[in-house]
């Protein structure tokens, strides 16, 4: 066949067919691989629970008190048990604040220090006051707090919080 012919040469035809088939084969493997890699993200289990923190009257007034609880979920082939902590601050007989003990900077756990009246984070020296406001250090926002609609006190006087994750 002459070079000037506008018709497809055997060589060009082969190249196109190979490119086409190669693309299909690449997609058949490549696209599922993306799903394969991000699968644990898509299929992550969510937690949506009301957690009882015990009788409200047991918490002292004016002193943030830590309550720890665990939740278990399945990750892949293992049961993962995570421990969570919340600080309960009873301001008066009826009004209560519940803080997450997770530092808003990079998720280390904060501790209440009575001497300085602050929540201190051991990782980057952050300090929050008794109301969760940042008084020192790098955190971008105050401590996370449960809103009023996320807190409940049942008929027996138990304090409950709406706990979600994922």
């Amino acid at each position, binding site marked *: 066949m002459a070079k000037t012919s506008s018709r497809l040469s055997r060589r060009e035809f082969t190249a196109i067919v190979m490119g086409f088939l190669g693309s299909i084969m690449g997609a058949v493997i490549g696209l599922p691989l993306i799903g394969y890699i991000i699968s644990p993200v898509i299929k992550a289990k969510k937690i949506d629970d009301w957690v009882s923190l015990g009788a409200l009257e047991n918490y002292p007034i004016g002193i943030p008190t830590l309550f720890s609880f665990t939740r278990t979920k399945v990750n*892949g082939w293992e049961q993962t048990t995570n421990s969570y902590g919340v600080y309960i601050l009873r301001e008066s007989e009826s009004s209560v604040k519940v803080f997450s003990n997770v530092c808003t900077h990079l998720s280390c756990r904060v501790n209440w220090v009575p001497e300085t009246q602050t929540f201190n984070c051991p990782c980057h020296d952050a300090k929050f006051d008794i109301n969760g406001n940042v008084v020192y250090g790098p955190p971008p926002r105050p401590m996370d707090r449960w809103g009023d609609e996320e807190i409940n006190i049942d008929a027996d006087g138990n304090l409950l919080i709406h706990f979600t994750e994922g």
Partner: protein
Amino acid sequence: MGVKIFEWLDERLGLKEIYNTVLDRRVPKVNWWFTLGSASLFLCLMQGLTGIFLTMYYVPDPTKAYDSIEYIMNGVTFGWLIRGIHHWGASLLVILVFIHMLRTFFYGAYKYPREITWLTGVGLLLFTLGMGFTGYLLPWNQRAFWATTVGTEIAGAVPPRALGEFILKVLRGGVDLSAVTLARFFSAHIWILPAVFLALLGIHMYLIVKLGISSVPLDDE
């Protein structure tokens, strides 16, 4: 734009030269039996690719191995596909390299100057079988356990008796088929055997490019 970038790269990397040397080689007029080498190479790449991704979820520990594969098969998106390709590809690869070897043998393609291509090919065949054998244990199910019991016992039958027993213990990492066996089979399967395999494959491929492939022998040859 694309052309300019390509030319800039080509001037420095010699891309066209690589293409011409490796893919645009002159080949004699041959038949379909000559495609088995390329097919084997393609399957090797698939085994490598899917194998790499299987290690993302697989755990080589007796208490977790089976569960992790169960998770790959039933929990992970397209996990069944990735493991399925690896599982069936392994068997298909053994078949392909075997027929590839038979073609080379019956066409006399192992003769001068291609003896080293043949010898590295023998190594590649053995390492393929080695990876098949070590991979077989990894699911840690009944079949895997007893196949490896039998396989290592066969290796242990090497005379004299003391040597055979030593080989058996080295393969198992002790007298028993244990967590140590699973860990070392995994290590051999994904690191040691593939590393040597790749070295041999490099020589094999280099020689194919350097020497070219043999033609189909004539009737009176």
